[in-house]
Structure formats: C-alpha cells, structure tokens
C-alpha cells in the first residue's frame, strides 16, 4: 500500500518555512528585514484615507458654494488634486505614509526598501484605476490575496511594497538579579532566545516559565527548580551590567 508511505508528504519538508518576512540583501551582504503588510490593514488604511478625502471635498464644496462659477472652478481644481494627488503627495513627501497608512503603521517603499519616489508613487496610484475594476477594487483585492508579498496590480507595476513601519521598541526591563557566568558559548539565536526569556517574563505564567526553564535544566546542571533563576542570571550577564 503506497498511500500510507506517502503520508508524511515529502514536499512539505522541502518547502521553506512559511514566514511573513521579506528579506532584501544589500550589496554589503546584509539582510534587511521588511514586513509586508497584508490586505486587512491596507483596506482599513484606505478606508481612513477615503474618509479624509471625502470630508475635505465636502467641506470645500460647502465653503465654495456661495462663490458661484468661481467656486465651481476652484472646487473642480481641488477635486482633481484630492483625487489624483492626495496619495502621491503624501507618499512621496511623508516617507511613504498617507494619513491612513500612518494611523495603521504602514509605509510604502520600493521593492528594495528604499523610500518611494515620484515615478513609482505616480504609477502605483494611477493604476488604482485598474485595481478598481470591475467594481470596488475586485482585481486589487484578488491580486493582494494571491501575491506572496501582498501586492496589488499597481504595486506590481511600480515595484513598490507596503510594509509595516518600524516602531521604536521600549527598552525591555530585566528582573533585578545577579549576573551569572555562562557555562557554554551561545550562538547568536541562542543569545536572543535567552534574552527574550528574561524580557518576556511578565507575559508568561509562572508554570510555563518553570516548564521552559526546565528544558535547559539538564545542560545547565541545575535542579529544575533553580533553572529559571539561573537562566535569568545568564540573561543578565548577556545584557551586561545596567
């Protein structure tokens, strides 16, 4: 029976691990990590921008109404500006953030992570007309859902990427405990894990903390009850003196 043999399907192991990161390698051999943003936050950002634009236009029409034909002329100029240039101007002059994107923590960049320029921004925003087809961004939605880095057609044409903006992280606070020497030489990811264990203490339940530390009790040669304190001491050592 070949079927049960094939069950742990080989291709799932061969595929790279699924992750939401997009790596850009610089000429210096450094990997820049970008986090492409998916449909839900982008749709919300668009809704915010749409509301803002609608409000601007409504207020302008109300204010320009009494001016008769002059008012209509100015209003149509404004309409042109708000419809076609709102996104472009904000994206190019405000580091890739329209107000909606700013609110949702998004940012438009080129595929290689550089700030978005005039040509790319114009292309991706003019092509909204295509994404709109046939109604209500149908093509844009489908393209965004199907693309591994969530690009709509305009993004594909312009070579741009919508990513989550890096937010400054608050400095983590480690529990006050005496530093303890490391009994082994940790590699980079192990250092990170040890530090993260100390930093994320507050979010973990006591039982889970003991369980996690217990995994390393053997190699650290301490009883399971002391493993947690030992790990915290090691993390303090890795962190350096305060």
């Amino acid at each position: 029976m070949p079927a049960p043999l094939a069950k742990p399907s080989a291709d799932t192991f061969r595929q790279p691990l699924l992750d939401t990161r997009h790596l850009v390698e610089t000429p210096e051999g450094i990997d820049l990590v970008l986090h492409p943003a998916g449909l839900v936050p982008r749709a919300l950002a668009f809704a915010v921008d749409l509301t803002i634009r609608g409000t601007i236009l409504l207020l302008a029409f109300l204010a320009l109404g009494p001016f008769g034909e002059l008012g209509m002329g100015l209003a149509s100029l404004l309409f042109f500006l708000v419809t076609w240039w709102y996104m472009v101007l904000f994206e190019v002059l405000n580091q890739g953030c329209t107000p909606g994107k700013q609110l949702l923590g998004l940012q438009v960049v080129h595929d290689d992570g550089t700030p978005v320029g005039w040509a790319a921004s114009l292309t991706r925003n003019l092509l909204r007309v295509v994404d709109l087809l046939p109604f209500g961004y149908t093509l844009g939605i489908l393209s965004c859902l199907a693309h591994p880095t969530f690009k709509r057609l305009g993004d594909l044409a312009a070579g741009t990427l919508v990513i989550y903006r890096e937010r400054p992280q608050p400095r983590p606070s480690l529990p006050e405990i005496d530093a303890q020497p490391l009994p082994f030489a940790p590699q980079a990811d192990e250092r990170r894990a040890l530090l993260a264990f100390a930093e994320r203490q507050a979010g973990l339940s006591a039982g889970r903390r003991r369980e996690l530390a217990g995994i390393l009790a053997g190699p650290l040669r301490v009883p399971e009850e002391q493993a947690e304190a030992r790990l915290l001491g090691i993390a303090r050592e890795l962190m350096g003196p305060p």
Partner: protein
Amino acid sequence: MRLSDSVAVLRPRSHWEAMDFGVLLARRHAGLLMLAWALPALPLLALLGLLFPESPGWALLIFWWLKPLGERLPLFVLSRVLFGETPRLGECLRALPGLLRAEWLTSLTRRRFSPTRSFDLPVLLLEGLTGKELQQRRAVLAANRGKRGAGWLTLVGLHLELALWLGLLAFLYMLLPPQAGIEFDWLRLLEGPPRERLWLEHLTNGLYALVLMVWEPLYVACGFGLYLNRRVNLEAWDLEMAFQRLRRRLGGVAGVLLLAAGLLLAQLPGPALAQPPVPQASPPLGRQAARADIRTLLGQPPFRQREEIIRWRLGDPPLATDGGSRTAVPADLVQRLARTLEALLWLAVGAGALVLAWRYRDWLAAFAGRRAPGTRRTPAAAPGRSTPRPASPVPPSDIAAEAERLWNDAPGQALALLYRGLLERLREDYRLPLNEADTEGDILRRVRRLERDDLQHLAETLTRHWRNFAYGGHPPPADQKDGLLAAWRAQFGGGSTA
C-alpha cells in the same frame, strides 16, 4: 503536536501580521481549503434553491446564517496543515460530523453575530474544552486585548464579500454585448424580480457562494493566525523551540567537555568576582564616564551638523475677514478674485511652456527648426585651393554679367565667381547637401545623380576649366567665354534671385 514539525516560523507577531500569516498559510493549500469549504456548502445552497424556488432571498438568508458551520472544516484542515500532515479530502469529510456537533446551536444563535467569531472558533474546536473550562479559557485568551484585530477582520471581511460579489456581478454585466438587447430597468430591480427573472436571483446566490469559496478559507485562516499568535505569545512557543534546539546542541558530543568545564567552573571559587571589581579602581574608564564621553563625542561635528538657515516666509496670516462675506459674497469681489486667479493660472501655463521650451531647446533646434525663407546662409568656401576668390564674399546680383566684365582682365576671378555661383545655385535651387569636405569630383557626382543633362554639362565644363585654372594655372581659353556664359544664363537666368 510537535512544535518542531511546524511548516511555519512561529514567533510573536503583531496582530496585523498574524492575519497576514494566516493568508500565507491558506495560500499554500488554497485548493484543498476551497474544496473543504465548497463540498458541504455548495450542495447545501443547491438544496436550498430547490426548497425555495420561488423566494431565492430566503435561500440566501438561510445559507448566510449557516455560514459559521461551514468555517469548521477549513479550520480543521489548517490546524493539520500547520504541523505538516496534510489531510486528504476523505479524512476531512469523515471528520465533518464531529466538527459540526460542537456548540452548533450557540454558534448559530448567540454567537452568530459575534465579531470575534474567527478567533473563538479555534478555541472551541482545537482545544476540545466544554462548559465552564471553555469559558475560562476564552477569558484567558481574550485578556489584555488578546483578541485585538479579530473585530476589524470581520468588519473588513464583511465589506470584502460585498465588494467581490458586486465586482463579480459587474464583471458579468460587462461581458454582455450591447447587441444582446438586455436592458435593465434599474428601478424595477428594486421592486423585486418578476417570475421570469428568478433564475437571475439564483445565479446571484451562486455567485455569492463563489465569493465565499475564496474568502471564507482566508477568513478562517486569518482568525487561526490570530489565535496561533496569541498562544505563541502566551506560551512562548518560539522560546520552547529555541531551548529544545539548544539542549540538543549541548547534549551532543560537546556535552562531555562542557560537563567537565562546568564542573571545573562550579568548583572554582570565581576569583574575579571575589576580589573588588577592577573597573571601580579606575573611575575614568567607568561605564558612566564612557557614556558621557560618547555623548559629548556624538554631539560634535562629524556626528551632528548644526546649520543656520535664514529664509523668507509668509508673515502672520491676515485676520479672516470673510466672516460676513460667507453669507453674501459681493459680486465684484468674486469677479476680481476670479480674474486674478485666471490670470495667475494662465501665467502658470505660460511659464510652464517657457520652461519646457527652454529645457528642450536643443532638441527643438535639432528636430523642429526651420530655416527662415529670406535668410541665406553664406555658402561654404569652395573646395580645393581657393586662391583666386571673387572680390567680395557676397556674390553680385548678376553673376553672369559680372563674370563677363571680369573675364578679360582676370579670367581666373571670373571662373571662380561662376563656380561659386554654381555651388550656390546647387545648394539653393537643387537643395544639394554640399559641405566643406566635398571635392569637385564629389559635387559632380551629386550633380549627375540629379539626371539633368544641361545642368550636368554646364557643371562639367565649368569644373574642368576651373580645375585647369586652379590647379594647373591654365587660364580658360577665350573662345569658351561666350558658350559658357550663354549656358549659364540659359540655366540660371540673369539675376541671382531667380
């Protein structure tokens, strides 16, 4: 479930990213997930259509109401797929009755309109808890804004379904050729369809199911992503995996050595720590001092540039005076404003055109320039050794008469004049592209290409005499004078501006 079997990188993410993760996971197994949704749902819709042939609206409502039940099978598939065991369709369908049984009534009544449905479903189905324990578990996961994003997901999903549905309808409408003669009276669509249009309603229901087939698995996957992220956060799955890896590494060959080293370390009293710490003995090298040093260094020029910029800017805005004019704007003010604006706009257009013209002036000169008809460029110097030049660089108006006058005293001058005149006429009248590098032979070849016998004859004769004179020093024979001048006159007439 073994964490190391996971086909994805499990690490704490933001709630938006957790949804994106769900989309990526669903994308990898899109076909299976769509089938898992469609196999129970589409027959159900067909059945409803058969039960309510007269009222497709009711069929759609019931179908929509039962939507949460259809989300269970895709979730089952996702939870297996995450740890690398892709279930086959048969397994899925066998698991379906068990999946549907759990809390089915609550999820169709009280929880039907819960905006965090997608997040709650995995808690119910995958953790296998019931009653009070389930409530507690839900409370734990929801604490500290644990369900953040789930509500937004549902809100966006609602609009997305609508947009895709209308998009599909619009697409179909666009496919209708205008010759088909189907004209919709949009107002009558509102009133409710006539009997013969019922099939259209049923078709619309089918399209909605098609949209759901795409979106429902993604919706479930996004919710699953949120749930997974919450658990990764609460239980530090990534740390568990990292610690397991570390233990495996340390437990290997190096373990023995480490053990020895560890024992040694444990035995030694740690001399460096027992003595008074060295850094305190030399305060200038202390951490605080170093930090202060660094700060002052960073404040100095190579790291911080201080620039003073002075520029003009608009003064304080004038106080708004249009408080009263809003109600009744004076007509002449509006007129004046409009005229000013119009002038400004035209100025902007003109300035733009000027800037463009200046920017592309070279291009314009090269490709769009036209020589004004009245101006003639001075002809290029005659090829060859041009020792005997005509007296004035500007050719006289009647070349033939002038040459006749010059012939007796200075036949060379006369010949030179005639030859230059010939070149001039070739350029002006026949538009031959002559340039300074052309030899007499080149010019003759070009003339031959014109295929005009008398012109060619004149040019050949003149060139021969000119060459004889210019290079050989032989003056033209006197008997040639009349023939040459006659031929010239016949060819070009008297005046030079023929």
